Every structure is written in structure tokens, then in C-alpha cells.
């Protein structure tokens, strides 16, 4: 019997990996990260009144969900999934999200900022900063308030970005969801101060100590289903400000004379399609992705338009409640 019975519809068994012997060693790097992630998830379930897992459908979320399934096996994770849907996610992401929630029998909450929607806020009309604030940051705060969640589990990693490197595993948020980077609770050993006053909340990051390469290694070893957009395929793209933007539907305004060109591309990070730059690549399998990763000379956030606004852009967004 295996501890985890995740259907792997799209992911056939990897030859030679079935017994997992190579990775059974508890001192192995990935097993240690896994044990730490599970420990953090169990602490969250035990210490908070009403936790939720933020499910962004990306590779990190896929790993997070996989850890949650393991942590509470043979039970189900004692918290729902929350997806903040901006209405601009890749269509494949939405299909994948709904399928995974159904397959695993989990409670999925989808929240969209209806005010932003009715104001017609889009990444094309209002710029990435304003759009992100309204449709992601404010939307997340709305959803957390609406359901009264006191802990939100996310897949952020410290290696992603400089201000993330300073974030705690259990990161306190004020009643207004604000992060105060200069007044963080010290975090020693594996002891987490989880006490909250009414209205305050915690963001929890079980993947804090993982790197991007760890994520891919683990997806490969554990056979974790991921959105196919991570694998190279011919996709219609246009070039905007030096980034390859995929034309995922008709809503993207094309410039006069501009037509999508078909390129073999893949995505290192997934978000809203107008803000996710693709990478030219022919890596169509997970092992090829890992190989490409190891040879890569750019960071994953390079493709993210929203981090570029200013050097302190991420810190400011986080202080306002962005994940």
C-alpha cells in the first residue's frame, strides 16, 4: 500500500522510479524538505481555527497540494483550497484546477473580485500594477475576510525574490492583511508563534526552503501532475516589451498588422496569461525541463511582468497583502 493514492492520469509511471528506493533514504535532500513541509502543514492544521490553502494551479501549488495529501493521509487535508481567479488565467490552468479538485475530492473555493470585474479592470486597460492590486491582492483579502480564514497556506519560496528571502515560515498579517517586514516575529528551531488577536491572520509557507530546482526534481521523482503549459509545445505568441505573450483567447488586443506566430515555448511560472512571459524552449518532457533548468542563466521571475515595476516592487505588494 502506498501512503498516497493520487491518481496520476496524465503522468505514466516513470521506469525505474516505481519503488522509489533511491529516494527512500530519509536523509536525502528532497525527503528532508518533504518532511519539513509536512511538519509545517500539520502545525497549521493543529494551531489555527480555520486554515485555507491558496491554490494557484502552478508547479509550486501542485507540490504543496501533494504534500498536503501526504500529511493527512489516509484522511483528507482538513482545509479547503482557495483559488483567486482574475478571469485572465490560462484556460488550461482552469481546466486542470477543476479536474484536480474533482479527482482528489477536495473542497475548492473560487473567488473573483466582482467589483474589479464590473469596473472593467484588465491588464491591458489599467496596467499590471493596478490590475494586480485590484484583481489579485484585493481579491485575496476579500476572500479571506469573506470566509474568516485565519491562516492561508501558500507556495512561496525564499529563493524566488529578495524580499521573500526575509519572510518567515509563519508570517503574521495585521487585521488589514498588512505585512510589517520590520516587525516580524523571530522564528527559532521548528517553533512557530501562531497566536493571533481577533481579525489578524497568518500566511504560511511550507516550501520556504525549497529552490526552483528542488520543485522540479520533486515533481519528477513523485510523478506529480502539472499543467501542460510547463512543457514546450507550439503555441501562438506575440512579442510585447521583449516578452513572449501567449494569445490564449480573443481578449488580447492585437496591434494593427500584428498576428500571433507559432513558436515552441513553455512557461517557467504561470499566472495571468497577459502577464506571463513564455520562454522559447523545446523541452517537452520533465527530464528535459530539469536539464534546461540546470543550464539556465536567467531566474524564473524574469518572465513575470509584475515584479519589474521597481526594485522594491514585491516588498510593497506583499506589505499590501499580496501573496
Amino acid at each position, binding site marked *: 500500500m502506498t501512503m498516497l493514492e493520487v491518481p496520476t492520469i496524465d503522468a505514466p509511471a516513470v521506469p525505474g522510479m516505481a519503488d522509489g528506493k533511491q*529516494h527512500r533514504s530519509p536523509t536525502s535532500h528532497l525527503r528532508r524538505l518533504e518532511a519539513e513541509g*509536512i511538519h509545517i502543514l500539520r502545525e497549521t492544521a493543529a494551531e489555527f481555527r480555520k486554515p485555507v490553502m491558496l491554490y494557484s494551479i502552478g508547479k509550486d501549488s501542485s507540490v504543496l497540494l501533494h504534500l498536503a495529501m501526504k500529511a493527512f493521509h489516509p484522511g483528507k487535508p482538513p482545509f479547503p483550497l482557495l483559488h483567486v481567479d482574475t478571469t485572465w488565467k490560462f484556460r488550461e490552468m482552469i481546466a486542470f484546477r477543476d479536474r484536480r479538485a474533482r479527482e482528489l475530492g477536495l473542497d475548492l473555493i473560487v473567488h473573483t473580485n466582482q467589483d474589479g470585474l464590473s469596473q472593467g479592470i484588465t491588464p491591458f486597460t489599467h496596467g499590471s500594477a493596478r490590475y494586480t492590486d485590484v484583481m489579485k491582492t484585493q481579491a485575496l483579502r476579500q476572500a479571506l475576510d469573506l470566509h474568516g480564514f485565519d491562516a492561508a497556506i501558500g507556495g512561496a519560496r525564499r529563493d524566488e525574490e*529578495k524580499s521573500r528571502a*526575509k519572510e518567515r515560515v509563519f508570517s503574521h498579517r495585521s487585521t488589514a492583511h498588512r505585512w510589517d517586514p520590520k516587525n516580524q516575529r523571530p522564528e*527559532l528551531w521548528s*517553533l512557530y508563534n501562531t497566536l493571533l488577536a481577533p481579525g489578524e491572520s497568518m500566511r504560511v509557507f511550507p516550501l520556504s526552503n525549497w529552490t526552483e530546482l528542488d520543485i522540479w526534481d520533486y515533481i519528477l*521523482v513523485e510523478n506529480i501532475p502539472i499543467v501542460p503549459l510547463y512543457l514546450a509545445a507550439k503555441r501562438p505568441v506575440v512579442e510585447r516589451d521583449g516578452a513572449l505573450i501567449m494569445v490564449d483567447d480573443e481578449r488580447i488586443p492585437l496591434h494593427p498588422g500584428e498576428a500571433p506566430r507559432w513558436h515552441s515555448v513553455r512557461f517557467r511560472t504561470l499566472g495571468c496569461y497577459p502577464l506571463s512571459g513564455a520562454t522559447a524552449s523545446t523541452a517537452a518532457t520533465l527530464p528535459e525541463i530539469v536539464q534546461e533548468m540546470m543550464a539556465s542563466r536567467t531566474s524564473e521571475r524574469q518572465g513575470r511582468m509584475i515584479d519589474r515595476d521597481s526594485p522594491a516592487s514585491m516588498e510593497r505588494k506583499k506589505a499590501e497583502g499580496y501573496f
Partner: protein
Amino acid sequence: MSYHEAPTIAAIDAPRLDQDDRPTLRFVTCGSVDDGKSTLVGRLLYDSKTLLDDQLDALASESKTSGTTGGDLDFALLVDGLQAEREQGITIDVAYRFFATRLRRFIVADTPGHAQYTRNMATGASNADLAIVLVDARKGVITQTRRHSHILSLLGIRHVVVAVNKMDLIGFDGDRFAAITAEYLTLAGQLGISQVQCIPVVAPGGDNIVAASTRMPWYTGPTVTAYLESVDVSGDVSQRPFRLPVQWVNRPHADFRGFSGRIASGTIATGETIAVQPSGLRTRVARILTPTGECDRATAGESITLTLADEIDVSRGDVLSAGPAPLVSDQLAAHLVWFDDEAMVAGRRYVLKCGTASTGAVITTLKHRIAIDTMAQESAATLDVNEIGYVHLKLDRPLVFETYRDDREMGSFILVDPISHRTAAAGMIDLSLRGATNIHWQRLAVDKSVRARLKQQRPCVLWFTGLSGAGKSTIADLVDRRLAELGRHAALLDGDNLRHGINRDLGFSSTERIENVRRVAEIAALFVDAGMIALVALISPFRSERETARQRVEAGEFIEIHVATPLAECERRDPKGLYRKARAGELPAFTGIDQPYEAPQAPEITIDTSELSSEAACERIIRYLREHHYL
């Protein structure tokens, strides 16, 4: 219209062949401001080729705009991630960085050198195997070096690399380096840091960081990277007795009852006998579920779920153990590193978290403070932020633990302020005071409910708090008389009167006021045990002590009555002439004048006697007692 067909993941072939298992070394860097810590870490990232092209581009452009190196690459910018840090050119908070070399993976906690951020250094050190201490070659071993090394030794760091930086500024003087080395070795000897390697470096230039410096041919030891790659820091916890702090009881359906947690030490196999601590109940391990499936055996560091052969009571905070029993006590002695801006107060209640257990705790005694610079033990009444002390703690219930020396995970704890929720201190357990095994509670045959039934009332504490002259005693006295008229049994504990008897040894400092309140709370609780209604009239200015008093009795037995007469009105009345004396400077530490009064946030009853007569206030309280079925 559809732009494309969605591809599927169908082509996962061979696994990556070079699945590597390079071990991870966690280290912390520490030193004073401007010693070059961030630069050293940035340099390690740079030289290990961890940095990617877009990060290097960003570094080059930021070095020009906000660098402090005149346009050259400013490696510190790689780690100073917060805006305030960039603006001030200092590191405020711990940053965790990841890099790998051919032989090892590394996680670096880069910690600030600012004195007021010492707590962050302790944080970084708590999970580290090794520390790099930066020393400015021009300054040598300074107070901050001693302070940091002392914290490292307290947190159990046994391996230290001393990076003597800025060698270029002393003309690469080998004699000066030897003198600094000798001085540090003396310090390390005093602190019990057993493994020390001193390395002369120039962080911005990369001398002796990855490559051996050509500018210091007299140095023949390892470079920083070479040492980090080869040092043996293993202290194998899998050889110690089995300990599993229970995090989560997994009970998805009636047929499965598992106990989840991460193994702190030792190994366990199916069929082995384990004991549940603190209850001491014994049973055998039935099944072991690990993240990779069901197994016969599991070892330290694994997050597992156990099922047991017998249905016995186990809950979060318990410890499953095998072999020699862990320590179990409600009294212990420990070192504390004080973190909170609010000073430590003996007698005050904190929440103690150790492993997965959480309990109320009181610091009974501060045995001594440790002067960080000289390591001398000093007598002290309190600990301020960033100070270190040795204390005795009394816990609400027995805790299962080990000494920090033996087991970092089961020997460490944090104290959390129950009101502000700030992490007030980090603690390292030195020894068990074994009080719990010697003093047993007397089992009482006639309990509170029996006594209460006899008296036809629900026992409770009516706690009147407020400024001097607010009317507490007057109203409490009226309530007492009214209860007597109604044939109920009450006792009035008046703060002033008690100070003539049981509290006559106490003055009015914060510490003494806390002890005063503690004693009154204990007496009130005894009256409640006797089935009586205890009326307490006491200024009790601090929220946390009133909270302690509330905790002393059961839920629903504590009724906080805020006699919220405004200060101006109290001062106008001044029935005992105390405000006049206080204003004249004859009464120091007078509540409301030069000592704060922390008003209750959610009292059961609030009374303002400038709006309500004492008699009306009394009737309101009686009405409350009736409506809530105390009478």
C-alpha cells in the same frame, strides 16, 4: 474559435540520471555593521555561479544607483532585500540564501549586526550547524564579536569559521591575523566552541573565499568554500532514544486512529514498545506510515504517522518515546535570550511552546543575568531586550522535554506574551527541577460543586479594577452587604486591607504590584473552591495580571468589573489625599500619574461613578449575577 489544441503531458521518459544527494549544511553569518557580512554572502553566491544573468544585470544597474562601491559590483545588494535596508545600507532582518557547490548544498542565514537586532542572530543560529563570524581586521575581536559568539555557544553552535575581513586595509599583515586568531581561540575556549577555523579574507575581492588568495601567500589553510565543503558537523540524532512529539491526531474514520509528527530523535520499528509521555501508558507500534508509503521502520527527521496496538489516550503535545524516558516536570531551569521590548517580569504569565506542547508558564526566579561581553553572572531584577539570563520556570502542567545540550529540538522553547502575542524570549532548557515528581496535589473529596450546592449559589470572583479613588471599595462593600441580605456567602478582599496583612512585605514597584495581584488572585481562587463569591477591590493596573487571575479559576467564574471613573474625577475626589501627594512627588509610581493603568479591553461590567451612584452600580451588579444565574 480555438487558437490551439491543449497538449497533454504524455512524454515523461527516463528520470534524471544525476539524482544527487549532496548533503545540506546550514550556516549563519554574523558580525558587526560594516564588517562585510552581506558582501561575503553575496560573494559566495556570485562565485558559486548561483546568480543568473538577469540577476547579474539587475545587480550591475543597482550597484550604480544605490551601491556603496563607487559603481563596482556591490555584492551586499544581493542580500539586502528590504527597501529600508537598501536606503540605510544596513541589514535589518535575517535573509535565507541558497547555493550549492560540487560537494554540498548550503542554506545561509544572513543576520544583522545591529545591536537592537540581536534576536535575529539567535534566530539564524537556532537552525544552523556552523557559524561564520566576521571580524574587521582593523578592529580585531570586539564587543560585538564576543556578544555574537556567546549567543552562538548558547544556541549550541560548536563549529565557527572566523573570517578576518578587510585584510587589504592592514596591508595583508600575517602577524596581525595570528594575533586575532589567538584572541578568538581564547574566547572560543571560554565558550565551549570546540571547532574554530580562522581565515583571512577580502570579501569584495574574493580573496580566500572560493579561490586561494595570491596576496596572502603566508596563509596555507583552506578557503572559506573549501572548509564549508569538508567540515564534519554531524551529531547523529538517530542514535539517541526514540522521541516523537505528537502534532496531529489523524482520525479520518472510525477504523483509523493515527498519531502524526516528525521524529525528533532515534528510530522506531513496527512491534516495538513505546510509552506515551507524560501519562506513561505503554503499548506497541502497529503500523508506520511514511510519505513514501507504509514501512517497518522510520528514523529521526521523518514526518510519519503511527498507529498503536491499543486504544490509549494520546493527544497533541504528548511525546511517544522508547528507551530511557524523557524528562517530565512542571519546573525547569533554562537560559533565556530576551527578545521583547517590554522587559521580563518575574511572576508574569507567558505562553510556553516546546515541541508541539503549549502551556502557561511563570518565570518564578531570575537567578542571574549574564553580561554578554564578559560572560560574568550578575544579579538582576529583570531582563531587557537582547539580554540573556538564567531563570527558573513553573509550568501549568508537566512538560515532556530533554536538556538543550542533549537535544536541540526537545530542549528548546519560546515564550509568547499572552496579551501582545509577541515572541518574548527564546529558551534553552538546562535542567529539570523535578518539582512535579515531589509535590502531589491532595485529592479533595468534597469539591467545589458540592459546597456551592450547599450554599445555593455559583461561586465566582467579582474583580473590581480601576484607579485609586474610583469607588471600587465602596461599591464592593455595598455588593457584599446586599449579598448578605440575600442570604448568600461572600468574602470581601480589599487591596488596602490586605496590604496590612498578607501583603505587608510588598511595596509599589511593578514587580511588587504583580506579586500583590498574584497573591490576591490565589486567595480569591481558594474562596471560589470553597463555593463562595469572592469580591476583590484592587487597582490591579496591568492587564496581564488580571488575565492571570482570570486563568486561575474556571471559565465563567471570573467577572471583571471596570470601575471606569475618569482620572480627573478621581483626582478631584482624592478621598485619601494620595493624588495631591503624588502630584507633589511624594508618592512615586502612583497609578494614573507616573505609572500606567491598562484599562480592561472586554470587562464583563463597566461602571462610571461620575454617571452612576454607588447604589445604582451595586444593583446593576446584583442584576448581572441574577441574569447569569450566579444567584
